[in-house]
Structure formats: structure tokens, C-alpha cells
């Protein structure tokens, strides 16, 4: 399998340092390799450790990331530049997903280089894709249900970044952002962290309740599911439960979403148990 990989000319181009960041033919070779490799990454099980341990590949991917920083503010990211960096991010997602490279990826603080992308607000497609693919990398990390990952993320500003995207991103971005927050909440340490101070709980609670109001206007079963799950999980913390008795948004109490949830028994049940939990004294 590994020999097959090296036989592929595009793979060779990606890892051959000659292709790194030069103008002209060299840069094109890297770009072509990024396209080819990101397409093929599902085919090879061990691509992540190969990317990590091959000379210079991670360094080159990091270069691809900081190269687009100047396009972030004022927003001037072209579709082509967005496309290129998204390919690099797709390979990083692969490294973030693999159990043999995940810890190395975290140890090198590489996720933090994506935060400037999550911090952008431009609504153009180029930026939407950039945010979405960056969220995908963080999503791949939290997907592993690994407390090391949660520990790492809690030491960074990922929660406020996700909260902002949950309020104002596209539907898909919102879904991935709330997925990340939900995964953090599902972790004991994550739940304790968010409920530790009133400010943190308030920040999360406010965004969730804004999302509920948005969902009344523009219903989305997928998003509603996550919102309900997040509230349900917050209800597991005694202090958050007390607060939610006061501030759970009305539309979740008064059957506003009965129609939307008609075909989603699981979420309906979930909402029911949330309301029961809140009605019981702690």
C-alpha cells in the first residue's frame, strides 16, 4: 500500500520538498498534489501517519495555512486560494482523525493555526468553505471522544468561536459548530467547565436561545436536534438546571416545534425528558 502511494506521481510531488512554496512550476506541483491527495485520502488507511512522518509534509501544510492569513482582513480570499487551503485542511482533518497522529497533532498546537479562519465573518463562498472545512478539522478531533482533545480545546478559545458561528453561520456551519459544542458538553470535564461560571453558562445559554428563536422563523430538524440535546445535557448539571428552569426559551415548552418534530421521535422524546427533568426539583 505504501509503495503504491509513492508510485503515485502526485504523492511524490507533495512530499518532495522541491515542490514547496516556490513560484512557478514548484508551486503548481504542490497545488496539484494537494488536490490529488485530498481526493484520495479516504482510500489509504494509513495516509495520516505517512503524512505526519514523511519529511516536511506537515511543515508544508502549515505554510499553506499561514500563506492565506493576509487574505483574511480585509477580506480578499479568492475562490482559488480558498480551494487550495481547503485541500490542505482536508489532509489535516485526516491527521486529526487518525488515532496514531491525533496526539502528535495536538502536541504541536496545529489546531490553533486554524482559529484565525474561524474568526472571519465574510459571507462569501470562499470564506464559508474555509470556515466549514476548518470546523471539520476540529469536528474530527472531538469525534474521537477523547478527553485529551477536550482538555486541549478547553484551554483555547474554541467555545466562543463556535458560539459566534452558531449564531450567524450558514446552516451547515452552524450544525458542525453546535456538534463541537455538544461533544464538549457530553464530556464530564466539558460540562463542568461550561457550568463553572455564570458568564460561561450565560454565553452558551444565550446563543442556544437565539438559535431557538431563529428556528421558529426557519425550522431545521437537524439543528433543532442538536439544540435540544445541548439543553438536555446542560440539565445534567444541578446549577445549570436551576438556571434553565428560568431561561429555557418558551418555544421549547409550548409545542411550537410539534410539527417540525412530528417524524423525529428521538428528539421529541429528548425534549420531553428535558422538560420533565426541569420540572423536578433538584
Amino acid at each position: 500500500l505504501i509503495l503504491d502511494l509513492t508510485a503515485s506521481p502526485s504523492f511524490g510531488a507533495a512530499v518532495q520538498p522541491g515542490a514547496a512554496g516556490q513560484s512557478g512550476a514548484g508551486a503548481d506541483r504542490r497545488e496539484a498534489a494537494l488536490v490529488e491527495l485530498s481526493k484520495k485520502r479516504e482510500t489509504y488507511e494509513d495516509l495520516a501517519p505517512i503524512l505526519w512522518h514523511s519529511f516536511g509534509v506537515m511543515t508544508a501544510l502549515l505554510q499553506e495555512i499561514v500563506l492565506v492569513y493576509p487574505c483574511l482582513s480585509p477580506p480578499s480570499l479568492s475562490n482559488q486560494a480558498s480551494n487550495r487551503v481547503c485541500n490542505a485542511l482536508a489532509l489535516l482533518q485526516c491527521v486529526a482523525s487518525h488515532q496514531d497522529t491525533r496526539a502528535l497533532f495536538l502536541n504541536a498546537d496545529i489546531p490553533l493555526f486554524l482559529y484565525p479562519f474561524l474568526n472571519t465573518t465574510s459571507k462569501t463562498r470562499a470564506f464559508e468553505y474555509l470556515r466549514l472545512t476548518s470546523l471539520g478539522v476540529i469536528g474530527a478531533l472531538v469525534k474521537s471522544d477523547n478527553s485529551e482533545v477536550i482538555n486541549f480545546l478547553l484551554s483555547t478559545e474554541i467555545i466562543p468561536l463556535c458560539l459566534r458561528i452558531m449564531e450567524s453561520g450558514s446552516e451547515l456551519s452552524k450544525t458542525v459548530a453546535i456538534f463541537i459544542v455538544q461533544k464538549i458538553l457530553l464530556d464530564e470535564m466539558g460540562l463542568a467547565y461550561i457550568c463553572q461560571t455564570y458568564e460561561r453558562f450565560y454565553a452558551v445559554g444565550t446563543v442556544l436561545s437565539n438559535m431557538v428563536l431563529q428556528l421558529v422563523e426557519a425550522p431545521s430538524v437537524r439543528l433543532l436536534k442538536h439544540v435540544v440535546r445541548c439543553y438536555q445535557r446542560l440539565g445534567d448539571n444541578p446549577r445549570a438546571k436551576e438556571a434553565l428552569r428560568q431561561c429555557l426559551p418558551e418555544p421549547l415548552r409550548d409545542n411550537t416545534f410539534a410539527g417540525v418534530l412530528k417524524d423525529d421521535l428521538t428528539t421529541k422524546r429528548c425534549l420531553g425528558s428535558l422538560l420533565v427533568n426541569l420540572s423536578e426539583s433538584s
Partner: protein
Amino acid sequence: PGTLAAANLTQPGEDSLYPISVYIQLPNLPIFNLQPSMKRIVHIAIDRAIREVIVSPVVERSVAIAGIATRELIIKDFALEPNEDKMRKAAHLMAQNLAGSLAIVSSRDPLRVGMITQLQNLLRQNGITEQSVSEQVVFTIVADNLDLACSVMERAAAEKSIAEIDEELGPAYLNRRKHRERSSQLYYDVSVYAASRYPSSLPEPLRLKPNGLTASQFRVYEDFSRMTRVAPEATVADVPDRELKSRDNSLLQMEDVVPQIVTQAMEKMEVAISELE
């Protein structure tokens, strides 16, 4: 307009941090000719905003993150490199570039806000009304000088990152020197090879070379000094989609590629999301 009180402009011990004065850009407005001190006011405002941000955690964090990423990747890539000078050179190039890039991207907003506030305060303190210098002019001055202020942050972060990375890699430099003094055998970093089976099982073209980096491998790190930090001139991003399509057909082809890649990247996420349900 009278002459401005010098006392309002300089506080004790507040000399300019960086010799930026020659680079300051001012709009071509009569007020700047009538009031020669205007330039000084702008200079002080920029200077104070820079001071505020430079002591905030922004620069320090950029240096720390760049240092960690550089350390981890250099140790891995230089595991067979016997020459600590080569390692140091690469580490400096990488750490400076990463720290500088992070510092610019994360200090831009705080600098903009700081410069606007400082400039408005100074103008008010010196009795310059909004009639003579409008809010719009303040914004323009700040926008025109934002890159300048950012480049000060970049330099500060890049300079700090050298000491930081030398400290992080100090033991690695020392190991190489000691090895050379003691032994004529090839150098290799045991910790890298003991930690994982992959480095030694990679196919030959991908593997590290027994005598250290080849010239073309070293170029990956030299590229950090060649990377330009200037935004591309052509900005198609903010043009409405309809206009784009009618203007350039080659862009249309790219549109087919982008969603495909994003869709691919999202596939795993979708699976993960459905697993939660």
C-alpha cells in the same frame, strides 16, 4: 487654530517605541497643513495603540504557539540531522515566520480599535473638533496606517520567537554537539525513532536521510523566508456570484471543485453527527 500644548502630546518617558514616523501616512487635507502638530498626534496615537497591544497576550501567545509547532516539527524532521547550525537556521526561519504571521492576524482588530480610540481622545484633548477632523477622516487615517502598526507587531513577535525557539531546542542543539565530540557514528535522535514505528517503515523517498537533510529538503524550511505576506491583488471574493459568472468562465470550473472538496471533508462529519442521534 492655535498651537497645540506640548504637555498634551507627550507623557514622561513616552518616547516612540519604533522609528515609524517616516512611514506614517496622512490624508491630503488642509487641516494637516494648518496644524503641523497633527502628524505628531497621529504618531502618538499609533504609538500608544501599539504599546497597548504589544503588552497584551496577543504577541506572547503568537510566539508561544509558533515555538511549540516549530519545536515539534523540527525535532521530527531533523531526527537524522547531525548539524545543529542547520537545525537552528531552519528553526529560526520557521518560528519567525509563524510567530509573525500569527501576530499580524491576531493583532489587527485590537490595533484598529485601539488606534481609533487613541486618535479620537488625542484630538479631543487638543481641542480639535469633529468639524475639522471628521470620524470618517479618523477611520481613513487608521486604515491607512494599520499595516504599518501590524508590521511592528510582526517584528516584535518574530524577534521574540528566536530566543523562545532556541530555548525550546537547546537540548537538541547540545545533543548534536556532544554526539560529534564523542562519536564518529551517524547521528540519530533516539526519541523520534523509539516513539513510533512509522519513521523507519516509510518508503525510501519519504524517509529521512542518514546523513541529514539534503539541499532540496532544507529548501522546505528556507521557503519560510521566501513566503510573501502581501495579500494577492486580484480579489474576486467580494464580487457577487452573478457578476463573477458572467465575467470569467474559468472561475465556473473552479466552483465545481470547491463544493466537492468541502462535501468530501464533511462526509465524515455527517457520519459522526448521525452517530450522535
